[in-house]
């Protein structure tokens, strides 16, 4: 490393200066994986992921799992589109799911028996552009208030737009829009002689569409449009002073995001062959956001990955108690492994927890056998291992009540854990882990639909506080204005 006499002066030699671009990677072996991935390059990674996705059905993915895959791909597409508005242009759009709905309902109205005598049955290659352009115009309309509104106000207005969409499709013109019963018997996607009627075909279509969309957005990201979007997020005032028409750029972000959402909507509608107002309500929006936040705002790959992970867990894994338990205990152990350093501390905590469990179980069994009569819900290896460790009351009513109390106490314990440090934290960790396993077995594993909602809420809270850039995103530096 030669020192250039014309180069950086006192206090910063070139080697130090070159390190300035060093990025932050995930801890330990995850970071190694990340660096290896980066050496491969973005485009090869996309190609590999796409091929892997296409190969999955051939490797045996079918039936129920295929449907989960389809739903996950739809949410991933939505997250990638939302990333344009929130991640690049920095506009908090809380009504994004309405564009998804517009796409779906638009296609439903144009390609089904719904409107007119026999209905308009436009072929997909006609209705798709119409729907996408319609959504873009709607995006412009929704974005217009953003001219005069600060970020918070925009969030409110878009939130209400999203709610208004559900209200309208639920209550307005039921004969045309189907009301709460929605529109059914939508045409499948057809064109160029092919008709898509099987789940496999929609799966393949979605993988291809997702990959193509991600590619298009990557090309946009480093073009003048992408730079303008990101500049507007960084500092709208400075961007305007540098010739960027801020309002127009914001509107184009809204429009592009809306178009992607509409695209996802049409495929969703065709695959489901029906649309209902409840398909586009706030819980779906929260899922999209959870995926985007988990994966990393601002990163295309992050948005898609995060959404896929969230949906696979939400829709797939958490449906069956056995798989859910594997995930729960697996993730729990993984977190402990990664976070608890040094090894001695980890061993102490785990050992103490195990000991505490057996002791508690034995004591409880001695006092009141009915208190431990119920077995853990998890089957197989985990179930056997937990049999004498976990306390689960035999009577389901008692299990529920005690489980509820346990839940509340667990939250309090977890919050206390956040407060304390050092030795106290290590000590408190032991009963917390045991209690968590108890609450899981006694309550949570029996209520998968509630558990997965709790998980989503927790993801949003924990990610924003501890790792706002998500798993694959980059830390941002915000200048306080």
């Amino acid at each position, binding site marked *: 490393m030669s020192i250039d006499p014309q180069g950086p002066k006192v206090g910063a030699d070139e080697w130090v200066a070159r390190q300035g671009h060093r990025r932050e990677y995930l801890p330990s072996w995850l970071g190694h994986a990340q660096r290896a991935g980066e050496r491969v390059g973005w485009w090869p990674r996309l190609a590999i992921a796409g091929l892997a996705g296409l190969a999955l059905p051939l490797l045996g993915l079918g039936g129920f799992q295929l449907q989960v895959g389809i739903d996950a791909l739809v949410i991933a597409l939505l997250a990638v589109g939302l990333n344009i508005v929130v991640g690049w242009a920095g506009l908090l759009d809380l009504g994004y799911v309405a564009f998804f709905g517009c796409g779906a309902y638009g296609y439903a109205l144009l390609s089904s028996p719904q409107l007119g005598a026999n209905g308009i049955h436009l072929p997909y290659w006609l209705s798709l552009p119409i729907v996408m352009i319609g959504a873009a115009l709607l995006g412009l309309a929704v974005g217009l208030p953003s001219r005069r509104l600060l970020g918070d106000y925009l*969030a409110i207005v878009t939130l209400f737009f999203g709610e*208004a969409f559900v209200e309208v499709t639920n209550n307005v013109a039921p004969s045309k829009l189907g009301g709460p019963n929605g529109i059914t018997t939508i045409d499948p996607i057809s064109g160029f002689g092919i008709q898509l009627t099987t789940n496999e075909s929609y799966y393949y279509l979605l993988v291809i569409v997702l990959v193509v969309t991600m590619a298009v957005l990557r090309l946009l990201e480093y073009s003048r449009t992408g730079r303008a979007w990101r500049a507007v997020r960084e500092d709208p*005032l400075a961007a305007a002073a540098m010739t960027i028409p801020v309002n127009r750029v914001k509107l184009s972000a809204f429009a592009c995001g809306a178009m992607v959402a509409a695209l996802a909507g049409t495929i969703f509608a065709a695959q489901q062959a029906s649309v209902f107002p409840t398909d586009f309500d706030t819980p779906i929006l929260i899922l999209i956001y959870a995926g985007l936040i988990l994966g990393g705002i601002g990163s295309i790959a992050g948005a898609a990955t995060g959404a896929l992970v969230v949906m696979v867990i939400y829709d797939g894994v958490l449906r069956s108690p056995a798989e859910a338990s594997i995930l729960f205990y697996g993730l729990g152990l993984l977190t402990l492994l990664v976070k608890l350093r040094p090894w001695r501390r980890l061993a102490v905590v785990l050992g103490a927890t195990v000991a505490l469990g057996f002791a508690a179980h034995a004591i409880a069994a001695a006092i009141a056998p009915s208190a431990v009569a119920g077995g853990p819900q998890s089957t197989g290896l985990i179930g056997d291992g937990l049999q004498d460790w976990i306390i689960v009351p035999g009577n389901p009513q008692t299990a529920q009540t005690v489980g*509820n109390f346990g839940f509340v106490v667990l939250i309090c314990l977890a*919050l206390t854990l956040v407060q304390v440090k050092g030795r106290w934290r290590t000590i408190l960790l032991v009963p917390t882990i045991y209690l968590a396993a108890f609450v899981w077995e006694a309550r949570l594993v029996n209520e998968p639909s509630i558990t997965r909602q*709790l998980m989503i*809420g927790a993801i949003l809270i924990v990610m924003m506080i501890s790792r706002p850039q998500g798993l694959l995103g980059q830390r941002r530096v915000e200048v306080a204005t």
Partner: protein
Amino acid sequence: MSFFFQELVNGLTTGALYSLVALGFSMVYGVLKLLNFAHGDLYMIGAYIGFFVIQWFGGAQHLTIAVPLLLLIMFVLAAALVGGLGVAIERFAYRPLRDAPRIAPLITAIGVSFFLESSALLLFGAQYRVYNTADFISLSSGIQIGSVTIDSVQILVLVLGVVLMAGLQLLVNRTRLGRQMRAVAADREAAEMLGINVNFVITATFFLGSALAGVAGVMGGLLFNQVTSTIGFIVGLKAFTAAVVGGIGSIPGAMLGGLVIGVAESFVTGYISSTYSNLIVFGILIVVMLLRPTGLLGRAQLQKV
């Protein structure tokens, strides 16, 4: 004509409820510049607390204590517990994000809201809990003005609402804490440098705002009878609208906004149909946003370049 006044009374009653929720929402926005999406869910928790108090004392049909005492306990307990919950949420979910860009606490708030709703579902079940107000408060003992009836529950809500709002106005404008709140709302850093304990002020604001939401929750249970984990969402939305229409960050604005929304909703339901009432409320918001973005009583915020 009497129909008009009846609807007006009904509207003012629900409006008072919305005002209380909007007040808490507006106060929190004032000091933290945070749109607390979880605020509506605090209302829901308050409603549940009221329900469980009724159950504790024997249930709606077989109350073991006098009704006034029951009501007192319901309101006080809801205020205290929900206030405490609000403080905990601020302490653990929002405080770490005090200086983060605005988008972060907003998303966290969405997460908190979702988590609260799911927790309520887990702990209290999905079935509707019913207050059965008529069983222990005789609705016929109200006031009759001409052919307009204001039943006792409505009187209770209106009176309590006015008292609380007046009390809050007094607190904010005449007490030291109120002055500190206004200072923190104007410029947090400067307030801190002037010796104001900002953390305490923010905690107090959250406690008060959440307590108001809890009390409103009990009122809602008494008025509308049914309690479930999702009632917070729509009431929260309407309180949002009320706070924004009135001018977010402005206390008189939240009060005015709540009444406007309540009355508008009542008239739309009465004269047109209930299916459109939500849409009309949203419409009011959009119109106000476009014509007067700072709300009816709000003040524009200057930005130094």
